[in-house]
C-alpha cells in the first residue's frame, strides 16, 4: 500500500509538472503554431514571441519581392490597457492581423467571425479573459488605451505565456498603438515547401538587420527562452525529478523492507535451487506491478483533477504521448529502486536456511 501511494504521488507530481510545463510552452507558442505562415521575420535578437521590437513595415516588400514567396503579411503584437467597468485598468496583449488574409487571426471563434474586425474599431477577445475582464458580450464597447473598441467576436482557449488577455483587431487599427510605419512581424507563406530552407537563407542574407526564422525555429526559440533563460524550465524539471526521486525512494524502501521480511523465503528458494535471476524476477515483478498500479492510480487522479486545475487558469497539457514516456520513466524508477533488494538477495547465503 505504501509502495502504491509512493508511486501514485510520484506520478501525480511528475505528470502535473511536465503537463504544466508543456501547457505553458503550448501557450507561449500557440499563435506561432496556429498562424498559417512558413517564415517569420522579426527584429534583430528577438528572444520570444511576446517581447518583440518594431521593424519597418516596408520590410514586407523585400519579402514579397523574393522569388518563392507566395504571400506575406504584417502582424503587430503589442501591449495596451483596457479600462474596466469598475474603473481599473487591465494590461492586454494586442494582436493586429490582416482580416482579408486571416493570417494570425483568432482561430477558435465561439461568437462572431475573425473577419468582423475589418473596417473599424472592432475587437475580438478570448473567453479565458473573463476571469479578469468580467462577462464578455458582443456589442460591448471597451476603452483600449484611450480609444473605444466594440467587441465583435469571442474566441476560446487562445492564450499566450504572459497570461495577459488577448485582444485581436485589424492590423490597421493596431497601428494606432505602435510606433508609426512599423510592424512587429512580417510573416510569409512559401510556394514550394521543399524550398523553405533556401528561401529562409536568402532572406537572412538580404535582411541582415532582422532575424528570420522558419515556424519551427521560432517555436523552438520561444520555448528555449522561457525554459532556459528564465530558469522556469529548470524549476519544472527539478520538481518533476524531485517527484520521481521521492517516489523512487519510497518504492525502494518498501520493496527492501518487503524483501527483508521475506528473506528466509528467499534463502529457502536459493537453497532448493533457485538462481539469483529467479529471485530478481520476483523482485522486479513486484516493482513492475507496483509501477503499473501506482501509475494508473496517479494518472486517473490527474485526469479527474485536470478541469479543476484549468479552472484556476493553469493549462495542463495531458496527452497519450505524455503518458506513454512517463509510464516508462516511472517503471524504470521503480525497477532501479529495487537495486538494494537485488543486492541483498544476490549476497544472500543459502546456508542461512540451516541455521533455524
Amino acid at each position, binding site marked *: 500500500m505504501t509502495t502504491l501511494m509512493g508511486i501514485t504521488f510520484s506520478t501525480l507530481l511528475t505528470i502535473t509538472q511536465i503537463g504544466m510545463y508543456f501547457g505553458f510552452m503550448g501557450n507561449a507558442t500557440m499563435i506561432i503554431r496556429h498562424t498559417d505562415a512558413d517564415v517569420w521575420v522579426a527584429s534583430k535578437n528577438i528572444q520570444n514571441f511576446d517581447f518583440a521590437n518594431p521593424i519597418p513595415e516596408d520590410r514586407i516588400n523585400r519579402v514579397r519581392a523574393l522569388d518563392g514567396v507566395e504571400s506575406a503579411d504584417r502582424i503587430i503584437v503589442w501591449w495596451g490597457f483596457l479600462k474596466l467597468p469598475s474603473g481599473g485598468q487591465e494590461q492586454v496583449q494586442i494582436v493586429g492581423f490582416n482580416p482579408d488574409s486571416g493570417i494570425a487571426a483568432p482561430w477558435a471563434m465561439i461568437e462572431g467571425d475573425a473577419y468582423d474586425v475589418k473596417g473599424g474599431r472592432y475587437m475580438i477577445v478570448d473567453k479565458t479573459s473573463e476571469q479578469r475582464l468580467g462577462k464578455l458580450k458582443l456589442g460591448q464597447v471597451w476603452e483600449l488605451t484611450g480609444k473605444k473598441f466594440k467587441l465583435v467576436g469571442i474566441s476560446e482557449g487562445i492564450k499566450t505565456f504572459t497570461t495577459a488577455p488577448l485582444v485581436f483587431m485589424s492590423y490597421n487599427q493596431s497601428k494606432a498603438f505602435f510606433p508609426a510605419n512599423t510592424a512587429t512581424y512580417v510573416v510569409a507563406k512559401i510556394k514550394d515547401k521543399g524550398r523553405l530552407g533556401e528561401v529562409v537563407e536568402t532572406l537572412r542574407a538580404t535582411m541582415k538587420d532582422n532575424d528570420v526564422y522558419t515556424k519551427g525555429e521560432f517555436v523552438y526559440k520561444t520555448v528555449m527562452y522561457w525554459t532556459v533563460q528564465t530558469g522556469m524550465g529548470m524549476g519544472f524539471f527539478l520538481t518533476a525529478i524531485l517527484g520521481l526521486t521521492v517516489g523512487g525512494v519510497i518504492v525502494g524502501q518498501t520493496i527492501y523492507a518487503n524483501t527483508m521480511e521475506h528473506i528466509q523465503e528467499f534463502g529457502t528458494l536459493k537453497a532448493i*535451487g533457485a538462481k539469483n535471476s529467479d529471485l530478481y524476477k520476483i523482485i522486479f515483478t513486484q516493482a513492475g506491478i507496483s509501477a503499473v498500479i501506482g501509475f494508473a492510480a496517479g494518472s486517473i487522479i490527474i485526469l479527474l483533477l485536470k478541469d479543476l486545475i484549468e479552472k484556476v487558469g493553469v493549462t495542463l497539457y495531458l496527452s497519450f504521448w505524455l503518458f506513454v514516456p512517463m509510464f516508462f520513466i516511472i517503471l524504470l524508477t521503480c525497477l532501479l529502486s529495487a537495486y538494494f533488494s537485488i543486492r541483498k538477495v544476490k549476497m544472500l547465503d543459502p546456508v542461512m*536456511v540451516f541455521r533455524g
Partner: protein
Amino acid sequence: MDIALETKDVTKIYRQGGIEVVAVEGVSLSLEAGMVLLIMGPSGSGKTTLLSMMGCILQPTSGTVRVDKGVVSGLSIDLLPDIRKKYFGFVFQSFNLFPSLTATENIEVILRLKGWKKADMRETAVGLLDAVGLKQRAGFYPRDLSGGEKQRVAFARAMAGDPAIILADEPTANLDSKTGNSVLELLKDMAETFGKAVAIVSHDPRAEALAHRVVFLEDGRLRQ
C-alpha cells in the same frame, strides 16, 4: 547399490577475523540409493556444515564431493543451483514453507523451478500430498497446518520433481514425539519405497533405529 553422493576428505575452514576455524575436517562418506544415513554429533560438531557441502550449498575448502559420479566441488558457484535443483530435495528444521502459498502451491514452486509445465504441476503436487497423507489439506495455508503436517508438506516438496537425494536437517526437532516418529517413518519410506538416498542430521536417538548407517561427527571429524 548405486552411489548417489560421495565425499572424499572434505574439509571446510572458515576465516573469521584472521583466525581459521576448522568446521569439518577430512570427512569421507558415501550415500547410496535406498539408504538412510544418519549424521549425529553434538552442537557445533560441523553436522550442518557437512550437510551444506553434501547439498552443494557450500563449497568445501578442500576435498571432493561427487553427485551422481560427477565432481561438483570446485564448480562455479553459478552452476550449483542447477545441481541442487536436479539432484536434491531438502527438508529443514523449521519447515521453511512459503506462508503465502497453499500446501499445493508450495510444492508447485519447486516444480516451476524445475521447468515443469503448468498443466502437469497441480496433479503431481496433489499426488505428492496424497503420498504423505495430506491430500485433504491441499488447499490449506501453512498457518492452518499443525507442525507435523507442515513437515509432511515439506517432505512432499522435497520429493517434487523426483530428486535422487533427500537431505534433512533436524527434521524432528520442532515436533512432538508421536509426530516425530511418523516423520522418521516417512523418511525411511522415502529410502526404502521410493529408492531415495536419504541423509539426516539429527540429535534424535530414535532416528538411529531406522538408519542404515550412522556416523558421528566430533570437532568436525568423523568418528565411526
